């Protein structure tokens, strides 16, 4: 800064300045490696020497792959001995399977990377929202917009946000605008997904005739909800990355204070009045619904790129009572 010449105020001669297009309102997307490296915190334990577990998995995978490839080689060789045509067909079939497998692995891997970078953005968002000073966040805003535009509902909202963002808004204001214009409507969608899932699991668990079935219903429906929520915030998870997301949710939940709120809620809902009114099966269902609701909020906290403002936090009690209230009401008279 010191060695640069101080530019004197005044009218710039025509043609003296080269425009940097859109640099103020919307800078070039900058999803830099630096950002990811800095932002993704290491959730795992500190590194210990050699990882035997990993070595075991890797060697087992290699072994199975090796057996598969050798077996296939032998099989194809055998086919060629019988007839060239059979050999060609066999090679083609094997090639197709191998290509599909590679493609699948590649897309899953890319998706995992995407999730990681999204979570890097989220971590940075959390830091920026808490930092007190002014920040140079335009590059970050571009990342945020790019991430959220991947969601079907987010795309239109991001367009609104781009329109609303003026060249006179500073970075903090840009963040506030994003929160107001984009995230609040998305939150509503996510709450809707939670309400639906809570209702479905509650109904499913309370009417399932077999013991194991309700657990399966809850698991399947919850996973669908997590995926819906992730999609709402633009994460587009696939199998592996969904798994990674859920893992992160569980890790966070294990260490966060929010864990206790479920006891609170269940107590409030099932304690006394309601529990006395409904049958045991229905109570189980409601319990499953409450748990799904809690899982949903954890999912939002993991997927939302910015933290909730203090007065804006989702209220599990309200969410669940909205979706389960009618269920309880409809069931209560019958059980009387």
């Amino acid at each position, binding site marked *: 800064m010191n060695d*640069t*010449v101080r*530019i*004197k*105020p*005044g*009218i*710039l001669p*025509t043609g*003296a*300045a*080269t*425009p*940097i297009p859109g*640099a*103020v309102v919307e800078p070039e997307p900058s999803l830099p490696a630096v950002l990811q490296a800095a932002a993704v915190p290491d959730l795992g334990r500190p590194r210990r020497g050699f990882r035997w577990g990993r070595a075991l998995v890797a060697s087992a995978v290699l072994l199975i792959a090796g057996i598969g490839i050798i077996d296939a080689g032998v099989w194809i060789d055998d086919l060629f001995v019988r007839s060239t045509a059979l050999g060609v067909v066999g090679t083609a079939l094997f090639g197709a399977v191998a290509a599909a497998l590679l493609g699948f692995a590649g897309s899953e891997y890319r998706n995992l990377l995407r999730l990681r970078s999204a979570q890097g953005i989220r971590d940075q968002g959390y830091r920026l929202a808490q930092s007190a000073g*002014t920040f140079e966040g335009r590059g970050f805003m571009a990342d945020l917009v790019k991430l959220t535009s991947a969601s079907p509902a987010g795309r239109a909202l991001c367009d*609104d*946000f*781009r*329109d*609303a963002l*003026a*060249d*006179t*808004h*500073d970075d903090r*204001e840009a963040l*506030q*605008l994003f929160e*107001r*214009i984009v995230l609040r409507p998305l939150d509503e969608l996510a709450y809707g997904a939670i309400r639906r899932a809570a209702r479905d699991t509650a109904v499913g668990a309370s009417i399932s005739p077999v013991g194991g079935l309700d657990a399966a219903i809850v698991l399947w429906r919850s996973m669908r909800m997590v995926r819906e929520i992730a999609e709402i915030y633009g994460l587009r998870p696939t199998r592996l990355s969904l798994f990674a997301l859920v893992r992160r949710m569980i890790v966070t939940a294990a260490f966060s204070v929010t864990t206790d709120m479920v006891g609170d809620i269940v107590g409030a809902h099932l304690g006394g009045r309601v529990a006395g009114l409904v049958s045991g099966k229905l109570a189980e269902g409601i319990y499953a619904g409450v748990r799904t609701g809690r899982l949903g909020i954890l999912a939002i906290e993991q997927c939302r790129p910015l933290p909730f403002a203090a007065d804006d936090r989702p209220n599990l009690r309200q969410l669940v009572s909205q979706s389960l209230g009618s269920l309880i009401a409809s069931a209560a008279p019958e059980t009387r």
Partner: protein
Amino acid sequence: MSSTSDDLGQTIRTLAQRLGASLGDAARGLAEYALRRRLRVAVTGLSRSGKTVFLTALLHNLHLAARLKEGQTGHLPFFDPVAKGTLEDVSLWPIDDLPAFPFLPNLDRLLDTPPEFPPSTTGLSGFGAALRYRPQGFLGRQLVDSTTVEIEIVDYPGEWLLDLPLLERTYAEWSAATLRLAETGARATLAGDWRQIDPDAPASEDALEQARLSYTTWLQACREPPLNLSFLQPGRFLRPGGGIDLAALRFCPLSLAGEPKRGSIAEAMRERFERYKATIVRPFYETVFSGFDRQLVLVDVIGGLNAGAESFADMRRALAGVLQSFARDDEGLLARLFRSRTEKVLFAATKADHVTANQFHNLRLLLRAMVADDTGQLPAVGAETDFAALSAIKCTANRRVLYQGQQITVLEGVIKGRRETEQLFPGEIPEHLPTPEDWAADRFRFYDFVPPSLARDRARGIPHIHLDKALQFLIGDLFW
């Protein structure tokens, strides 16, 4: 038997339902009445601070607020009822007991092609706005579907606020202080007939009127370029306003030695001075000023920087005078007399579009430093105070450019008096009061710009800077 009792039952039920419905209506009406809020917001500022433009843009954008979408010019994204989408409708009306602010003629000028800045207003005027919204709070939501916040926006010249300190002074004290000031700096260079008046000369209405004219001319010369001074008392000489007794203005400062002689011009002026305080200054504070719930004080900080060190210092002096009106230290007699009900005061540096967006922060800090005393302490105002940088009409755009090998933000707009769109590096705003070196270096030269053409489209808002944030600070808390 059973059929008649059924009929009777039916009738009673119908009656009860009707009663219930009308009771419900009445309750809802009562709730709506209870939730309805009305308050007075004052907008003031010394001349050239951009009051008229501000009010015109504010009223227009407010009027359209419920209809404009994100990204449309004039949208108010930081005004909560707009951001949350709870604002349903805004209507404007003239206030009964006040001259109407010439909103529509001013708007016509701004929307004209080419657009023109409206002429400045000189007296007290106002306009009302009724904002209908859906309450979001728990209680409000239960009671009514929608309710209304009515605000009366009143505009008065900031010069009038400079008269409050006169109430604490006698004519002799005021004369001495004003004469002392008139002998310093740029003021000393201005000649005026009033300086030659002999205090012992016999009084006559003609002589008094001559003195008033001479002193008014002198004050006007102080206010105009090249002097651009602001601390000019009494304020009514420059901005008389309507409906006042002009005879009370027939005085000027005189160098008094002892008690004025009977029948002398000095004695007559002393009497006028007291009359001025009693019939003009005091009633303004008692009937108008004390009735404001929120106040917005516009300050042309950028104009002050342009005008140079002396003018800037004088503007600070005037701001200190303005602030006395708000100050509420319990010791002062004035404080006890005019305990206004003002809850919030926002000081706003106008014309923020004259600098690039990265200077807004400094502009706010500088304004705060101007209002504060020399130790940086803000006087006890007794109301929530905040500072803002805003522009009621945004005439420029910010652009990032590469210039002389550096990335800088420049302004793009049509400079007043020119025709083409040009790029301008406006320089920086200091965050502290400018030092003597700053003034010597000729650092401050901010250009005025031509307003953007709005093509006579009344459905379009006026582009602004942070009008919404100012509005949110002033009245945002009224929307439950």
